[in-house]
């Protein structure tokens, strides 16, 4: 029994350690001046696990790169935008997590957070049956949600297994 628990622990440990947002790109609406951008920069940098933040005022693009092992959640990124009086469009993300659910209704679970997304393909459909239960890296788009909410859908462009 002890061996089983130990085995399960060592199998699950890497899954948790590798589940996280790696990069989040947000197009923020409403920033007109330097203090707006600075406010977003300060707020994003205040999220534990955020490595670098770049804010481009003319395009509104905010690029957030995160450290390995972080536990930052999508809700925190949204809050950082909303508390400064702005909104953001869809979020482009690169995220690692466990692929759960079924072949017809796959779900991405981002460990260390309560973030869980129903997956749908952006273009065509990939055969992801073989990836169920595995840790994957997904690049895709989380659609804009009403204020204070996080979308429960992730439209994926690519899914690759993490080996």
């Amino acid at each position, binding site marked *: 029994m002890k061996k089983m628990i130990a085995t399960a622990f060592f199998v699950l440990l890497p899954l948790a350690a590798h589940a996280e947002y790696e990069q989040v790109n947000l197009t923020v609406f409403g920033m007109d001046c*330097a203090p707006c951008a600075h406010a977003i920069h300060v707020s994003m940098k205040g999220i534990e696990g955020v490595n670098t933040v770049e804010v481009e005022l003319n395009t509104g693009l905010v690029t957030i790169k995160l450290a390995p092992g972080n536990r930052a959640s999508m809700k925190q990124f949204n809050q950082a935008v909303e508390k400064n009086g702005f909104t953001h469009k869809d979020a482009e993300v690169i995220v690692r997590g466990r692929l759960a659910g079924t072949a017809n209704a796959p779900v991405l679970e981002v460990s260390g957070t309560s973030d869980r997304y129903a997956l749908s393909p952006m273009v065509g459909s990939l055969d992801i049956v073989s990836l169920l239960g595995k840790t994957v890296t997904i690049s895709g788009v989380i659609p804009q949600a009403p204020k204070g909410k996080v979308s429960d859908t992730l439209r994926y462009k690519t899914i690759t297994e993490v080996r």
Partner: protein
Amino acid sequence: MKSLIALACAFALPGIALAADHGPVFSYATPVNSQRELSFDTGIFGRSGSNGAQLSTGSSIGYGLTPHITVNAFLPATFGSGSLQESRIVSGSEWTAGASWRFLHSVTSVGKRIESTASLGVVVPGPQRDSGVLGSLHRAPGIAGSLAAGLASRSKYLWIGGGYTRFAEASDDRRPDTLSWSGVYGYRPAKLRRGYNQWDYRGFAELTGEHTGSVLKSGMILQNSSTTTLWLGPSVLAIFKNIAISGGVQAPVFRDASESIYGREHLRFAINFSYLKYSSHTSSH
């Protein structure tokens, strides 16, 4: 003592004015603080006329309770002996405290916002007295409200606004009610639409106007003490990240004011320095 109590009440009220800490220097504008943002402003405001000059310094502090509600307080100090008319556009000797609420906030595209902000606050006589006619009055607190609406973008700014201040009576004296309004157009040239790590400049053309009611002295209306003036002038704002410096001058374009009471005011100027302290706080998951 009365002033102190009134000021304490004012701080406790969810009420006041001046919305902009990095906008135009004379006009009403819509920006409010971010949630948990602290803003510190300090400025010099000058008024020059045929009866002398008045120089005020003022410092204000603002705090963003929510992304759309900011509470603030303003403490001025005045110097000089210019016998000038009441003005709410250029700060005088009154302390103010209150809140601003950005009740309309539309952000539907990159770099652009359309918004409206209402402010309400309490105006309390400071320890210093004014000069001239206003200096001889017994003073009482008042209430100030304002409304501003407009557009902010990477290239253009346009705000219109108006405010009203009414003072209470004290020993049959009353400072004049003041109706103020403003329109401001701002422009940032294409070359200056740069990254936020560089200085950000923009210029404004500010048109402001004020109508002050009659002065009540010992229960009697002081004849010809009502005024209407219109002012126009440029201002410039420079920002680097969380530091802003702005300055502007205005000259009268219309004046209906008794020269025997107030003299002939011919110049207003303002220089303001702002420091914005943003909060990095976000909740955990």
